[in-house]
């Protein structure tokens, strides 16, 4: 079983990386980009009997810092 963990900065947390990407897109002539937020995608290859609770605990204990980040778990068959 595979799971994809999407880690994103919470709203209101400054994202200098996103801002730099936005600036670079502007420089390439792509107008109409209102905002850019950068995040992380972490792919886990898991034993089939891994519980949802365990995946959630992995996110809370290590993969995301919930002071500044949100996470979303997407299980892939």
């Amino acid at each position, binding site marked *: 079983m595979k799971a994809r963990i999407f880690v994103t900065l919470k709203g209101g*947390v*400054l*994202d*200098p*990386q996103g*801002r*730099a990407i936005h600036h670079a897109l502007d420089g390439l002539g792509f107008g109409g980009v209102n905002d850019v937020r950068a995040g992380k995608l972490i792919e886990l290859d898991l034993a089939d009997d891994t519980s949802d609770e365990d995946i959630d605990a992995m996110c809370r*204990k*290590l*993969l995301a*810092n919930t*002071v*500044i980040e949100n996470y979303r778990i997407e299980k892939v068959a």
Partner: protein
Amino acid sequence: MKSAVIVFPGSNCDRDLAVAFEAATGQKPAMVWHRDTDLPDGIDLIGVPGGFSYGDYLRSGAMAARSPVMQAVAKAAERGAFVLGICNGFQVLTESGLLPGALLRNAGGHFVCRDVALTVENAQSAFTSRYAAGEAIRYPVAHHDGNYFADDATLDRLEGEGRVALRYAESVNGSARNIAGILNDAGNVLGMMPHPERVIEPAHGATDGKRLFQGLVEGLMARA
């Protein structure tokens, strides 16, 4: 008085901090590897040094905060040992939950490496007792992720309880309320981005950091 410096793979200020501890305490600190599960007996002062532990993978300080030795550091902090986290050490202390908040990428996007002006906000703590409240000092900084973040309620609590130990007196990295260093609620854990251990001898060009280590030793002696 026994001190220890924690060493992670990628720490690079551990030996500087050991020199500062030895100068202040008169004894060489124990250098404790991140995989150790225990600290030597009777440690009263623990340094979590600067550097790039685990290459800053995932988030600065994230992997180091989950290494075995940090559970021993948390236990020592609970029984009242002084814990000083500098730069990457501050990031490790927030990631491990010993201090609130988090350190984000610098607002300007750049690595900042220079001397900065600081104000001592709280001169009552063991770490700052040799400074005067409101005193202007200069320490070097060298970091990419020093932009302190916490929600407004946490920031208000830190300010209200006198837990902002040091504040930047100039624009450095976008830190909330210009916070450069904070204390835990018991006052025995300090995390700070600037490097006092880099300004302790005339050969360093300045000695503003020396009193921090002297104050810590006096605090420990007074307690013994």
